[in-house]
Structure formats: structure tokens, C-alpha cells
């Protein structure tokens, strides 16, 4: 079985303040399998159900129908709660709301203290996690004096210290400036490539999704697409109709493709685009 296995997942929020209670079904039968070491981006507009999906992976939300399991552990089983959360770390959008302590290293140690790890082992893992995300020099700082990107890296270190097999990031860059965004993206990619951590990245930024191995598009609580980034972004019209964007380079390639020029519509990186446009222009001159 896959590392993360989701089958027929349904989930709804019930608003009990209304009379009669209003049930709002957010996930309507999602099937998704994620293998160890994958880097999966999840796209979808606000309210499409992608954050709800993320919270199902580490047993914050429990499935109403269907099943979710992590490393063979079913989330519905309460005994699996801590083992699952230890394996799947979560990073949220607002860095301010996930830092618990008043000193960086104390915060990184938080999860390990909760798990009852030996003090010397906590020390070792905290130092290692902080070095991995490049925040070791800031270990004695107060979190509120760090920049957004730095805070988010501290938050990543906080889950990294648990030595999880997977990290789910729910729009980790939404509140950051371009510099912070690239810091966080670099960290995420490094964790995936060098440490083999499985990454599930929920994002609104197409350029970030384009860096993943695989892109899953969610709309109205259903999985619409699940493919490599090239194949997903080349569906420019479909993406637009879902309220999503495509990278600018894909847009121009798609435009020229539709005009009848001989250019691939599956261009998602700057390098590919420069190359393709260059060849197109050269070819035309050559004729």
C-alpha cells in the first residue's frame, strides 16, 4: 500500500448554530495515493477543500466516509493518533500562530518534549533541525523579531525535529514576501531531494507548484487532475475555468501554439521557454 493512502474520502463541516444544522460537504470522494519521497503540490481555489484534505492526512479531521491511512496506520483509530502525527508534520500559513515558545530553540523542541524524548536526544535533534533549515545562528532569538521567511523556517524546523517521513505544508508562503517565499521553497525542495522527506505542498502560486513532481488539482471537493506539472499546466483553459492560473511562460507558449506555431504547449520553466522561443524565431528566419 502507498505511504499515504486516501480512498473515497468524504468530509463535511456541520454548522450547528443554524436551525436546522447546515451540513456543508467539503470533500466528495477523493482518491489519492502518495508514495514515499514524492513532492506533490495541491492546487485549488479558496474553499475548494484542499486545506480540509490536508488536515485529514494527519488525523485532525477524520473521514466521514472512505479511509485515510499513513504508513498503513488508519487515521480513524485513536491509538494511531500520535504515531501518525509523528510521521506527518504540518506547517500552516500564518507563522505567528504556530510558534509556541518565546525562544527559537525552545519552540523547535516543543514537539519532542510532547513526545517524551530524552533531553540529550532533544538537544541533538533541535540543533540538527535548526542547522538543516539554516536557522542555527538564530536559536536564542525571540521569534517575533524574525522575518516572515525565518519564522516559517523555524516552524519547519519544529516539525522536522520529529524526524517525520512526510511534511504537509498548507500555503506556507501565502503571507511572505518574495524573499521569504524563495527561502521557504528552497528549504522544502532541499528536504525533499536531500533528506527524502515526502512533501505535500498546498499553494496558490503556480511557479511553486511547477517545481513539484506531481500536481493534484482539487475543485469543489473533487480531484480534477492528477499528473506531472507539464500535463496539468498545459490545460490552460481548464485551469482558468477553475479559477487558477498558469505560469506566464506556459501562457505565452499556449498562445503561440493556438496561433498555429510549432511550439510545445507543455512549457513550464523559464529555460524551456527561452529555448523554445529562440528555436521558433531561428527556424522562421532560416526558412
Amino acid at each position, binding site marked *: 500500500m502507498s505511504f499515504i493512502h486516501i480512498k473515497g474520502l468524504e468530509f463535511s463541516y456541520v454548522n450547528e448554530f443554524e436551525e436546522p444544522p447546515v451540513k456543508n460537504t467539503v470533500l466528495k470522494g477523493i482518491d489519492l495515493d502518495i508514495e514515499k519521497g514524492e513532492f506533490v503540490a495541491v492546487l485549488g481555489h479558496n474553499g475548494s477543500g484542499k486545506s480540509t484534505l490536508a488536515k485529514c492526512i494527519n488525523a485532525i479531521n477524520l473521514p466521514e466516509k472512505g479511509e485515510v491511512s499513513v504508513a498503513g496506520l488508519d487515521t480513524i483509530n485513536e491509538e494511531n493518533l500520535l504515531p501518525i502525527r509523528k510521521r506527518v508534520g504540518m506547517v500552516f500559513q500564518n507563522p505567528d500562530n504556530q510558534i509556541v515558545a518565546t525562544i527559537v530553540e525552545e519552540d523547535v523542541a516543543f514537539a519532542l518534549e510532547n513526545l517524551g524524548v530524552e533531553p540529550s536526544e532533544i538537544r541533538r535533534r533541535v540543533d540538527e533541525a535548526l542547522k538543516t533549515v539554516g536557522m542555527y545562528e538564530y536559536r536564542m532569538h525571540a521569534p517575533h523579531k524574525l522575518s516572515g521567511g525565518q519564522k516559517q523556517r523555524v516552524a519547519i524546523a519544529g516539525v522536522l525535529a520529529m524526524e517525520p517521513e512526510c511534511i504537509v505544508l498548507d500555503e506556507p508562503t501565502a503571507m511572505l*514576501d518574495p524573499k521569504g517565499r524563495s527561502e521557504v521553497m528552497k528549504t522544502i525542495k532541499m528536504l525533499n531531494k536531500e533528506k527524502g522527506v515526502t512533501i505535500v505542498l498546498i499553494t*496558490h502560486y503556480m511557479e511553486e507548484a511547477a517545481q513539484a513532481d506531481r500536481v493534484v488539482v482539487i475543485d469543489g471537493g473533487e480531484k480534477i487532475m492528477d499528473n506531472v506539472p507539464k500535463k496539468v499546466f498545459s490545460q490552460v483553459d481548464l485551469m482558468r475555468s477553475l479559477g487558477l492560473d498558469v505560469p506566464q511562460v506556459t*501562457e505565452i507558449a499556449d498562445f*503561440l501554439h493556438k496561433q498555429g506555431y510549432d511550439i510545445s504547449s507543455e512549457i513550464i520553466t523559464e529555460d524551456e521557454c527561452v529555448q523554445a522561443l529562440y528555436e521558433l524565431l531561428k527556424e522562421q528566419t532560416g526558412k
Partner: protein
Amino acid sequence: MAIIKTEDLTYVYGENTPFRKVAVDNVNLEIESGEMVGLIGHTGSGKSTLIQHFNGLLKPNSGSVYIDGEKLWDDKAKLRPIRFKVGLVFQYPEYQLFEETCYKDIAFGPKNMGLDNAEIDRRIKEVAKMVGIGSDILDKSPFELSGGQKRRVAIAGVMAMEPQVLILDEPASGLDPKGRDQILGLIKEYHQQKKNTVILVSHSMEDIAKHTTKILVMNKAKLFCYDDTVKVFHRAAELEEMGLAVPQITRVFNRLRAMGIGFDDDVYTTKYAGELMLRLLSKRK
């Protein structure tokens, strides 16, 4: 006449403390009425501090600010009326909503201006239409709305004050692509309808490129330049050196030029890139 003018504007945070930091350093600037200005600069470049001077929230340590020809801080009693000429929408403005209904919240600014109820009502109806808030939503509590709707109500609250200058700090941050386009679209529409000055602060060069006619660049507390959008993007290399990300499409065409493709245009929107490609391709056929 310039609607906003600054003379040697300097502002220092925490003077006489160990945290002393010059946030705005000797800025001289003249913004003409009716422009749609993009304000860019990395975090800490002083752009937020600068805009807070435009409506008198901060008092310059030295130098002066003129709004519509009137000098701020000359007479403290006159500050409030001048402040009403410049509407300021902060980042994540939905966090400042507080009234029981959206209607009342939008009315907060106009009420502070001392307008009568009929006028307030007229303005609320007008801005609600402009930002796409239906009359059913106006009677709801702002806390029941979705993120995008809240943001639009908050922006409407400032628009209802009918300022001559509307300043928006990162109005689209945290929204999904569709929400982004909606917010920026309505701001552009507002600008075209009202013909007044809009200053758009954003980290997204793509958005700035698409929507503004002029760009103001702040770098390390200093004014780097204030010029037409085309001319600013012509200096793409300098902007990148400052740590500002120019649009992806601009980078692509700059590289093409470096590879020996001959064209003089500065490309910063995909629409223009498409037109340029078609022109280049047809010329070479």
C-alpha cells in the same frame, strides 16, 4: 498640480534608542493627480512607512509632505480634513472590521467625516456596487463572510470616504488567483471611473506591470526612481540586483535579447509578449 508632494522627507524609528533605524531617507517626490502608481520595494525598504506619511499617520522627523498643496503638520487641527483626502487601505484590511453589519462598517469612515445619513447611504450603495457586494450581504455581519468578501467590504469602507488618493497596501495578498484578479480588477475599474489617484503597493511585479502606469521604487529607505512603467522595467537588471523579482516574462525576453534576437521593446506582460512574438515571427517569414 501635484496631489502628493514630499520635500526631503525623512523618518527615523526609535530615535535615541539602540533600535534606531532610518526608514525613509530624504525622499523628494511629486505624484500627479489621476495616476495609477505602483509602489515596489523589498520588505524593510520603507514603502509602508512612506505611505503612512501620505495621510498623516506618521510625522516626519524632517522635511514635509504636501497633499493637494496643503502642508501636513503645519496646523494639527487641520490634519483630519487633509487625512480624509487620502484613503489608506492596510494589508489584510479585513482584520479591522468591527461593526455588526457590513453596512455599518462601511459607514464608519463617512460618519467620522460628519456626513449626513442620506449622503452616507448613497455612498454605501455606490461603493457596494463597485466592489460587488450585494444588498443581502450589506445586512450581514462581516464575520460571516468569506475571506475575499471581507476584504472587499474593508476596501469599500475606505472607498466610501471618496478620497482623492486611494492607497492600497498589498490588497491581493493571501488570495487565490481568481480572488487576486477580482480585487485588482475592481481597483482598476474604480480608478477608471473616478479618475482619481491610486497607489498600489505590491510585491508582485506581474500585478504592478499589468495594472499601473507609473512605478515608484523604494530601496533601502531611499527613493530609487519614480517613472513610467515601461521605463522602470527597462532597468530590469538593476531591479533584480535590489532583490526585486521582475516578471518571469520580462526575464525570458531579456534573455532572448541577450541571445541575439533583435527587438527594442521592453516586455512585461504576457499580452504584449504575444503581440511581440507574432510581429517578430511575421517579419521574419
